[in-house]
């Protein structure tokens, strides 16, 4: 089927159809959501007040802003809260809202108080949802087989934790945050997460080789087609391999410049992997292959 069915656009021909609606801005919203939530979670873990504040701001301004820019009717954005019972968009919106409110209370209250603990717990739980709900959102519909897999939330979670760890290390090395745990622990955690992400991406792609024809078409576009160059160079090369090598062989010992470079490379890879996964989403042909 993959060989004979064409990849079509808006022409009146039956075939695989490329997803075109969710691209740059949605990828940006996913990116900011994951790194912001990851940074917030890591800041709760490391006790960094500034990190938690930055995490909140990244989610609120970065993710919220990208979503508002994308909406066809941004003035009605509040309606997006209406149906959390069935819609992951609404659930994500609620999680973002609760994270922002609880996070702000957590930052405003004195550390150690009962309210501080409660607000921190609620904000942490909602940040966890913000970090992974994109995966459930993509996974929820059968329309695009590349996304319709349980690997998606896992991928989101590990990328979120990696982004949060990289940004925390960045803040520490630039003297912007002091943390309650040792920096070397965070550096090791970053290396472990980079290796984990490489494995998860690998497993995800391998699982797609045994999936439906549309998933295989998506995979072809990603690893051999139009999007192969940015995938190998930016998402894998810069985002994971270069970052891993730099973090393992140089790391924080190289000074703030190297840590900044590692963080930037990680973020570039993070954005591009989800951008590319959105771009190569392919719908199945409406009816099966015609045979002679």
């Amino acid at each position, binding site marked *: 089927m993959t060989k*004979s069915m064409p990849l079509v656009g*808006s022409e*009146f*021909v*039956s*075939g695989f*159809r490329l*997803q075109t*609606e*969710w691209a740059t801005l949605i990828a940006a919203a996913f990116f900011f959501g994951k790194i912001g939530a990851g940074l917030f979670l890591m800041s709760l873990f490391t006790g960094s007040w500034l990190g938690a504040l930055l995490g909140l701001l990244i989610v609120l301004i970065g993710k919220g802003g990208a*979503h508002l820019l*994308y*909406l*066809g*009717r*941004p003035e*009605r*954005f509040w*309606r*997006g*809260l*209406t*149906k*959390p019972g*069935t*819609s*992951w*968009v*609404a659930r994500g*919106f609620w999680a973002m809202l609760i994270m922002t409110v609880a996070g702000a209370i957590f930052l405003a209250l004195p550390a150690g108080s009962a309210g501080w603990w409660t607000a921190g717990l609620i904000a942490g739980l909602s940040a966890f949802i913000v970090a992974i709900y994109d995966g459930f*959102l993509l996974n*929820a*519909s*059968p*329309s*695009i087989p590349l996304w319709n897999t349980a690997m998606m939330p896992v991928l989101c979670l590990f990328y979120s934790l990696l982004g949060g760890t990289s940004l925390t290390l960045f803040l520490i090395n630039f003297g912007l945050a002091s943390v309650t745990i040792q920096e070397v622990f965070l550096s090791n955690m970053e290396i472990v997460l980079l290796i984990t992400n490489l494995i998860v991406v690998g497993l995800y792609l391998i699982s797609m080789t045994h999936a439906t024809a549309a998933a295989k078409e998506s995979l072809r576009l990603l690893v051999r087609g139009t999007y192969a160059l940015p995938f190998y160079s930016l998402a894998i090369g810069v985002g994971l391999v270069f970052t891993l090598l730099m973090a393992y062989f140089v790391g924080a010992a190289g000074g703030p410049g190297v840590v900044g470079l590692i963080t930037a490379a990680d973020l570039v890879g993070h954005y591009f992997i989800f951008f590319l996964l959105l771009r190569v*989403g392919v*719908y*199945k042909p*409406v*009816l099966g*292959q*015609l*045979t*002679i």
Partner: protein
Amino acid sequence: MHLGMVIDLKRCVGCQACTIACKSENGTPPEVLFTKVLEQVAGEYPIVKKKFIPVLCNHCEDAPCVRVCPTGATQKREDGIVLVDHQKCIGCRACYVACPYKNRIFLKKGSLKKGYFGKQLTPFEQVKYPKWQEGVVVKCTFCVERVDQGLDPACVQTCPADARIFGDLSNPESKVSRLIRQRGGYQPLSEDNTEPSVYYLE
């Protein structure tokens, strides 16, 4: 009542009369097609086979678009017709992406400012466009205004080959039910479990 459509692929001649009838009935802007006829070709010259596949919103029983809509703008009526309330739609396009059939259209900003003949709208477009809104998702409604008056959708009425048949799927004696039963009608992408209300006959 469960309204649905049967499309007889043996009868379809690919004339696109349904496409034009739909545009005429709904007065949709350029590039917005609620239904169209796709072509599918198999084989190589001189042994070639061609099939025409009319596509439209399938008004699924378990519609992913209804499920993913965060605002409740996409709803299903009791008779099975899936409609979008343009006043509630925020243009997030979750439904657009979730539809396995890719039968939803987003009305981009500026799409109602120009018609088929440039920036000046024709009198027809001036009459039809006010019912649309920019920045929302639109789709086939099975011509709900006509159906509510007891008429067939415009594409069904127009089809010169009688390839589209509209009726009550819940009535076993209706023409659509009999055709599905007798000719082995099947749903598109049935493996996705969306239970489309549109069936195809080979």
